[in-house]
């Protein structure tokens, strides 16, 4: 009946055995991301930096060089042009002007480009709102991470929540790194993507952790590295399947969903790949370092214990 079998029935991958390699790789990834985020830095969109974005559709293929010369003469400071999807479409970005109301930029650009241009999108963010959005974005990421951390702590023990938080930070920083290295625009939608990645990655982590906890109760004498490996391998099929279905849907959206949303989708795709990796290769080995032991595991909270018995199969 089954046409496709991606993961063998009983995989046996020694994740814990190669934990030093994955640790070095991740440390490098995170360090590189931080360095890149500082220099050259992130390409902040107008949400955070203020300024104006105008998406225009010309009647024929756009003459970028000509438009650039025309717009440079306006004295609006830094103006950048970029082809946006189709040949006729151009995205014009203009730096923030003094004062709150940036409408003057749109007016001047419209006067310069003249008739026969379709203004598909005009957006500006003034300095005050830019500052506020930056703050709000930062708070949102911090609050979500803390909320997830608290939830894992409530459901598991602190060792698990620390491991989950490390994996989460890893995913968030690696995503920031992607934006730094590719120069893709970092905006409010990116923050939404980062938070979604955090939620998705923790999803994977919880599934593996659940199995670790279950196995800790089941095999009280098994050495920790073996137990963690067993848990990973038992859930590997599910981890891979889930990531693949989500990736399939997202790749369709990134390919056909239009230019506006492409950056958002690419961030999500990267985040899901990196989140899946970190759930297996970072979050689980982290339990060795935080010192999870079979003895300490009795369920995260009181009411938890009641359900636990029925969840553990009677035979082993």
């Amino acid at each position, binding site marked *: 009946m089954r046409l496709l079998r991606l993961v063998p*029935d009983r995989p046996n991958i020694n994740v814990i055995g190669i934990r030093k390699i994955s640790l070095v790789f991740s440390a490098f990834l995170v360090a590189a991301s931080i360095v890149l985020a500082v220099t050259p830095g992130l390409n902040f969109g107008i949400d955070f930096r203020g300024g104006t974005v105008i998406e225009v559709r010309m009647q024929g293929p756009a003459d970028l060089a000509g438009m650039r010369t025309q717009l440079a003469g306006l004295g609006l400071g830094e103006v950048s042009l970029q082809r946006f999807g189709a040949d006729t479409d151009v995205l014009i970005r203009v730096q923030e002007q003094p004062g709150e109301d940036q409408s003057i930029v749109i007016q001047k650009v419209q006067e310069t480009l003249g008739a026969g241009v379709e203004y598909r999108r005009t957006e500006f963010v003034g300095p005050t709102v830019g500052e506020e959005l930056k703050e709000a974005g930062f708070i949102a990421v911090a609050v979500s991470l803390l909320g997830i951390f608290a939830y894992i702590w409530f459901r598991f023990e602190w060792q698990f929540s620390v491991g989950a938080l490390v994996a989460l930070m890893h995913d968030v920083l690696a995503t920031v790194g992607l934006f730094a290295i590719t120069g893709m625009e970092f905006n409010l939608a990116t923050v939404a993507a980062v938070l979604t990645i955090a939620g998705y990655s923790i999803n994977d982590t919880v599934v593996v952790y659940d199995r670790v906890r279950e196995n800790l109760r089941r095999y009280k004498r098994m050495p920790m590295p073996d137990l963690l490996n067993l848990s990973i391998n038992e859930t590997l099929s599910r981890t891979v399947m889930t990531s693949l279905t989500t990736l399939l849907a997202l790749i*369709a959206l990134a390919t056909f*969903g239009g230019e506006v949303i492409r950056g958002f989708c690419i961030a999500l795709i990267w985040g899901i790949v990196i989140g899946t990796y970190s759930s297996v290769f970072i979050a689980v080995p982290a339990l060795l370092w935080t010192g999870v032991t079979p003895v300490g595991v009795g369920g995260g909270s009181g009411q938890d214990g009641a359900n636990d018995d029925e969840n553990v199969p009677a035979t082993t």
Partner: protein
Amino acid sequence: MLYIERWKLILIALICALGFVYAAPNVFLSRGDADVQSDLPFYVPYRTINLGLDLRGGSYLLLQVDTDAVVQERVESLTDVVRSALREERVQRQNLRVEGHGVSFELLDPTRTDEVRQLLRDEDPTLEIETTPEGRVTLSLAEDDLAELRLSAVNQSISVIRRRIDETGTREPIIQRQGDDRVIVQLPGVDNPQRMKDVIGQTAKLTFHLADTTTSAAEARQGALPPGSVILPGQDTGRPGDQAEYVVRKRVIVGGESLIDAQPNFQDGQPVVSFRFDTVGAQKFGRATQQNVGKPLAIVLDGKVISAPVIRDAILGGSGIISGSFTTQQVQDLALLLRAGALPAPLTVLEERSVGPGLGADSVAAGEFASAIGLALVIVFMIACYGLFGIFSVTALILNLVLIMAALSILQATLTLPGIAGIVLTIGMAVDANVLIFERIREELRNGRTPVTAIDSGYRSAMRTIIDANLTTLIAAIVLFSLGSGPVKGFAVTLAIGLITSMFTAVFVTRAIVVVWLRRTRPKALPI
């Protein structure tokens, strides 16, 4: 044992059926139809999904009301109150000036302090008055009054903005206050955002003054400005007879608040605005024109003299005409602004996001196409990997999409472009719960269980993991919702709805399907 009570099965079927009913309008009704039927009771399924501005096209504006200007104006009027009250009682004072949110001055005769205090109290009992034995008097506006002043400026601005937008014929605008002094304006389907900004943002304070003919603007600039007069710029038109600057009496004969109507019109082929005053305004205007025949009348809009015609006759009927160098569009807009009334305070646009109808339609088309492809890929993949059980979960997945559509329609949540991404993401994630369950069932089968017990324990043990995993994502969605503006909020809403509906379909619906299938076929081995 694996068994579901009949009433549970019926409930699950009922919820799914309701999902179809409430999602149906999106397929069968166009937006226009739904609007027409908007007076139906809430339970009738006529609502369609509310598309965000990035999908419908339109403008989002974040405006700030300059409430400081209102306070400033109030404080300045306080100096006039003090000046005239003291003059009437022949109290001598010096150094009258604005200080913070109040006014201070010094009495030449400190023994009259108490008398002055009483005098000012009679003028305005809400003032806070402090005096020193040396005769220094400080008046300030009470904190409560200041707050009240600011609040009413914002509320008044909102109603003026609403009137103006309604006058332009924009359908379904959303105008709401945000924070202390901000206003969010959402204008679906507007394709000329600049004009809307002009219409919304202009203060449109109209006043009629007498021009001061005792001096010219040039002499006044040299220092010969008579007290009670002010120099105002003219409109930069280049029309013969128009001056660059005018000397105008400060006293207002009558203001825009006395207008009851203003209409665009033509006079000698030129676009003009004709207006009509209310009774009191007409009387004031009539008296002033009667007494000043032959003198110029200055018509001042937002601190600029737009024209200064010479009064030929007393205008007693209470109606008149504003001419100037206007285009037809300008005349229409000015008439609109005068009808809708002046803003109590200047507005600043802090943020604008406008999407043209072309891009919106393209985004909808691209989003629909991409969702369909994504859905098809996931369907093929799931059936390839899980066979019959894959079909079960795909059924649940499609039901899930129907339920999301129904929920969006019922809640009238706004679907944005990132919201479509949220739905696509839930397509991928919705099967997650099923994958968890199916993998668990396989595992139990490998451990030598019978089909029935394997399914039973597969559902049971996967349940807690599913809840944990979805709740953590829900935390992120809730934070996003509270952070978000417009599109991001739309993403959070669809993500959250998708998480909840997917838990329902993946757990309850597939379970029901599996149970019914088991009962019918009683298989010896599971095709999973």
